[in-house]
């Protein structure tokens, strides 16, 4: 694994962006309101938030597709406004809603972008072949883009995003609309990119499991502001959603469980009783003692942190 510990890939401070539209009545939409974000080199950081939160705007500014109204943004040591040209050679982006020229074939699309990044001849052919193999596009290399399925189009977008061997990769909902098995492979590939090549990855996603699985850190953004950031575990603790003790009991229903001090709520789910408690380590022995004293048979016990999805719901409120 390549390590750049302590070096910043992204250092954005107080970034503001307002979109103006409509005529003669102007409408203003404040997409970002003073966002600050730092990302260490080699990290995978997730930017999560509800629709219209400002995720894509933030990513687009970092990727030089948009210019910020205010604030300073340094990416890989370059100012995104003044040194955009030099920066573009070192980063790339893939979108969950990819689109390329409809008549070009898979290999031609990758080769076109490869040439823009200065590849030619045997080096270009090797890179195209390598990416086609990596993204499992071998049988489709001569298929026109318009004839590909959604999943295959996304794989083309991923291949294109790696054509310049980027140091920083932006992935905007990379598994949107993919079949579960393909999503798993894409996620494994993203993890491998970081592990083997040390690529810094910033991704947006609506899939909490994906963020939980891939990201070292998560930034929750809503209304153009970052509301919380930290590791998935830190965020779960930060929101104080409690922890969940799941019990399989006989008899299945124990109405008095929710009345035990420290138990926040209990719900029945698929034969399990899920008790959300303030602190599992402290409450588990108390719960087990109370159930045993009441003659309830305990068939199974599981303790888990709340899902990131619950954190998301809480923050998005």
């Amino acid at each position: 694994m390549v390590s750049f510990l302590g070096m910043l890939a992204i250092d954005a401070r107080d970034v503001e962006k307002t979109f103006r539209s409509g005529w003669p009545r102007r409408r203003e939409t404040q997409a970002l309101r003073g966002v600050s974000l730092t990302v260490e080199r080699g990290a995978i950081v997730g930017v999560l938030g509800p629709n219209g939160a400002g995720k894509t705007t933030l990513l687009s500014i970092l990727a030089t597709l948009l210019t910020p109204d205010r604030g300073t943004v340094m990416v890989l040591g370059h100012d995104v406004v003044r040194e955009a040209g030099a920066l573009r050679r070192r980063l790339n982006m893939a979108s969950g809603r990819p689109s390329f020229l409809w008549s070009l074939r898979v290999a031609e699309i990758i080769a076109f972008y490869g040439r823009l990044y200065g590849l030619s001849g045997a080096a270009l052919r090797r890179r195209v072949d390598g990416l086609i193999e990596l993204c499992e596009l071998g049988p489709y290399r001569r298929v026109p883009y318009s004839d590909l399925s959604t999943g295959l189009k996304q794989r083309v977008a991923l291949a294109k995003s790696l054509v310049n061997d980027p140091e920083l990769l932006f992935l905007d909902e990379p598994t949107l609309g993919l079949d579960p098995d393909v999503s798993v492979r894409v996620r494994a590939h993203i993890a491998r990119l970081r592990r083997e090549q040390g690529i810094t990855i910033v991704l947006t996603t609506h899939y909490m499991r994906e963020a939980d699985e891939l990201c070292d850190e998560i930034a929750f953004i809503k209304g153009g502001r970052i509301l919380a950031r930290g590791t998935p575990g830190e965020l779960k603790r930060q929101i104080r959603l409690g922890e969940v003790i799941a019990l399989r009991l006989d008899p299945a229903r124990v109405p008095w469980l929710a009345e035990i001090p420290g138990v926040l709520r209990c719900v029945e789910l698929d034969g399990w009783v899920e008790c959300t408690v303030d602190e599992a380590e402290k409450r588990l022995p108390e719960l087990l003692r109370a159930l045993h004293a009441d003659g309830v048979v305990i068939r199974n016990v599981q303790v888990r942190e709340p899902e990131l999805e619950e954190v998301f719901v809480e923050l998005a409120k």
Partner: protein
Amino acid sequence: MSWRNELLAVWAVTLRNALMGARNVFFFFELLFWPIVGVLSIGLMSRFLELTEAQASFVLVGTIALSVVNVCQLEVAYAVLLDVWSKSLKHQFLAPIGIRHLTLGSWVVGMVRSLAVFVLLAALGRWAFGFHVLQPGWFALAMFLLGCFLTAWVVGVAVCALITLFGNRAEAFAWATVNMVLVLAGIYYPISVLPDSIAAIARAIPLTYFLDAYRSHYGFASEFRAPIATGLALSALYAALAHWAFLAAIHRARRTGLLLKMSE
């Protein structure tokens, strides 16, 4: 950026446009159908009106110029239009590509395609109406074609700027702008027949001078003292202005978010 990378980026766009052109049926209509229809209908009309050989040559030069400029400028406009239609504009501008690569790469394809159109129309004009494009000589013909290509580049880049400035709704400019320019440049008539105010605008269009210079070899006295030099100077001025306008439009699109909106 090294020269190698500069040429490679231009070549990438050239290859892309050439492949797109070879695989889409509407390019075929642009390349063959409309130009042939234009020369045949104008040629037959000149026969019906019993125009002299010189007069018929005059209007056929205009008809051929119309097709050559039209095909070439559309190809330059495709530098942006193809990506607008396929919603891939953001990928284009995420890459280290300058507008010079986009427009030059597209222009190369445009010149090749419009040269093919020219050869076809010249052959058709010779066979059907006895019109001889080489009568003025190779140098005059080369200058005429250069004038057409330069005009096409200026109009095409200006169209790219308009599309990047106003978004998809400005697509109509791609087809409308060139016709406006050609009408003003005296495509079927000398600009001396235009009202003074319109003629003043016509004198600001480079193609006016290149048409005048070429037609002077078919028996029409030139209206200008140094038409080719004037045409080249005006072309250089407009080329610089169009390039600057496109660059400014891209900067604005990055600021307003239109670049992203056109990719959604």
